[in-house]
């Protein structure tokens, strides 16, 4: 076990844990926008920064990536930390003025938009948190979406922005998206859904008749797991 201090609170933690994980276990709230329990940390949003002190040196580190060490002192709300968080939120508010989630988070943290930043008018709600891309690659395992371009032009999209041949329509990207940027449309009868420019036919449950998953997704699961396709044609509730 490792002994450290977070916000003046003496804490024991296991070696190898990140500051963020230890803080959360101990009821200390550190805001994040790109962290998810099913995903490896990426350190993109910079909201989870904290100030650490080791000996005399202090520095600002990413709590979702920095692993705890013996004797570490962590301040999750120092002035330097709050300055970074404030700027990050103000920048994101200016990028995605439409996003309700960002406005709520800013409200909770007492951050007002910076009047000097002209809000973008392209109606984009994507904050490039990368959760969709990481989910598609690491959790689903199909890598149907990724990034194009760099810097300000960086966009989440399918390769060459064409209809994806590898997408299985599972919708995990839309589910994990924190700002509602990724849209998934479903027909009134639920018999098909459209995402990333492609329309997926839904499978009706053999028992209850409810449409519950895209056929392509079930085929993919069947191939991956070896479970026969017909066994997967029953929805979770009827299994």
């Amino acid at each position: 076990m490792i002994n450290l201090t977070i916000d003046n609170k003496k804490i024991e933690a296991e070696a190898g844990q990140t500051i963020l994980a230890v803080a959360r276990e101990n009821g200390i709230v550190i805001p994040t926008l790109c962290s998810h329990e099913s995903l490896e940390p990426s350190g993109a949003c910079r909201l989870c920064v904290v100030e650490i002190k080791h000996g005399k040196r202090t520095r600002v580190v990413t709590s979702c990536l920095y692993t705890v060490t013996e004797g570490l002192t962590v301040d999750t709300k120092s002035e330097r930390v709050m300055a970074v968080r404030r700027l990050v939120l103000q920048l994101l508010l200016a990028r995605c003025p439409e996003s309700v989630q960002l406005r709520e988070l800013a409200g909770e943290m007492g951050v007002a938009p910076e009047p000097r930043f002209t809000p973008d008018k392209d109606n984009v709600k994507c904050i490039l948190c990368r959760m969709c891309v990481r989910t598609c690659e690491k959790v689903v395992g199909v890598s149907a979406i990724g990034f194009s371009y760099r810097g300000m032009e960086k966009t989440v999209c399918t390769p060459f922005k064409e209809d994806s041949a590898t997408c299985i329509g599972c919708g995990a990207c839309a589910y994990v998206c924190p700002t509602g940027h990724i849209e998934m449309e479903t027909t009134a009868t639920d018999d098909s859904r459209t995402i990333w420019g492609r329309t997926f036919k839904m499978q009706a449950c053999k028992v209850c008749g409810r449409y519950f998953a895209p056929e392509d997704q079930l085929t993919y699961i069947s191939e991956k797991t070896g479970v026969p396709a017909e066994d997967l044609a029953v929805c979770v509730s009827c299994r």
Partner: protein
Amino acid sequence: MMSKIESFDELKSLQERLKAGRDPKKPCVTICVGTGCLAYGTQKLVDNFREELAKRNLAEKIDFRTTGCHGFCERGPMVIISPEKIFYQRVGLADAGEIIDKTVLKGEVIDRLLYVDPATGVKVVHEDDVPFYKKQTRLVFGLNSKVDPESMEDYLAIGGYSALGKALTGMKPEAIIQEVIKANLRGRGGGGFPAGWKWDSTRKAKGEPKYIVCNADEGDPGAYMDRSLLEGNPHLVLEGMIIGAYAIGSSEGYIYVRNEYPLAVKNINTAIRQAREAGLLGANILGSGFSFDVKINRGGGAFVCGESSALFASLEGRAGEPRAKYIHATDKGLYDKPTNLNNVETWANVPFIIDRGADWYAGIGTENSKGTKIFSLVGKINNTGLVEVPMGTTLREIVFEIGGGIPDGLKFKAIQTGGPSGGCIPEKYLDLRVDFDELTKIGSMMGSGGMIVMDERNCMVDVARYFTNFLVSESCGKCVPCREGVRRMRDILVDIADGKGREGDVELLEKMSAAVIDGALCALGNSAPNPVLSTIRHFRDEYKAHIEEKRCPAGVCKALITYSVDAEKCTGCMVCSKVCPTGAASGERKKAHTIDPAKCTKCGACRESCKFDSIIVK
């Protein structure tokens, strides 16, 4: 094709044979065909020389060598006639025949091709007497003019690969590392981290294989030191890498080089092929039992890929995005294996340290920065080019003695060091002794060695805007402070330059800078505010003039200036009216001209062409 060299003794005798086969008294014509000189059209001059030599049946009697960059790019095309080392500059493409007939055959000096020292008006005959070279210590870079980069024989004839032989046959890996630590070789790529300690960490790190990587992703605007080393003396870099690999215990190396450097890619490829043929790369090098090989990886032109973790991502075939470096690359770098990354110039220094010893090397430079550093001296400077000086040389010596000062009699204003992430240094620091620590102390950095000189006609807000804009377009976009923050800073700088700056903008820029420095994920983001911060720090008045008085003191920011004619000085020569692209400048012969502000696009053509200094920019 060279046959395999089986041992250090065989290498030594080969070097001796090559040296003996070269008569130092035999006339030799050397032409620089570095990228700078090639841009002057020097290839045509090379062809002319070959043709003229053949015509006179002199190909056997006179050596002819094309080499990499000599550094004095301002004065290309350059021809050096040995053994006297007569130095011709700005040589015309049709001058080959005359040079052969007069200088090479008869020893006559062609007056018009000589360099004139602008300070004294004296014509300089010999290369070593040219002030630009005289005040340099061209330890690493000087070899460029002695070898044809495509000839391994040339490199061997000047003692090349001796250091490798010495290291492989007479030194233990740990002893090599100790030597590099003792020499206090610090990384030339920007960080200035002691290379020996990095080697030591990589050697001691757990995990196999271990990689060594040469960072040749030089991307700073105006910097081309590493390019010129790879183009001009690729075997030197390779020798440094092989020694490093042996010391670290690596059998696999990579050179990550920008694809925009086609000549560097070509020459290093040739050098690798030659070294493999000679058995200096591959299995059992010089019979030592040590095996090592190098692969080239061409980068796609992203500035951020010079950052180590982004470079590794790119090498692995992923997008060039950095990751947090809480675990050092020496433990987990390329493919998560222990990796030692050094830049081109750092590797090129290694053979000297091994060959001549750490004590000798540590005798050059300052207390904590040893050896020499190559700088790319560009911008408003008379002698544009690459200069190599001992650490601790003052900025004044570099700019005024070597660089020959500022053109057109204008006043020095600032020098930007360390590339886009570095800072602008004002006149009051001209006597600063340039080394890693001194530059950092005043808010700039060594970086990879870019030096951009600015004169009184450079606006510091405009300079900050330029570099910040560069960083905006080169941000990988992964983290918010760099992607969004630096862009917003750029927008504010554009506003200030456009006369739309608001009260509080400077303070906001400072506040944002502090948060970006703390908050960005990688070193590119952490250092992105430097151009803004250093210009505010040293030229705050200029920002104030733009914001409060809507005035650009340097006369650069177009929204804030007007062009007019000083009627007293104007002679009515009509030159301005001829060069003006929009017809804004006009007037009758021998009468003072005027500039119509409605038509004027503020391109500056009139000011540049006016011989009477009568164009007023306010």
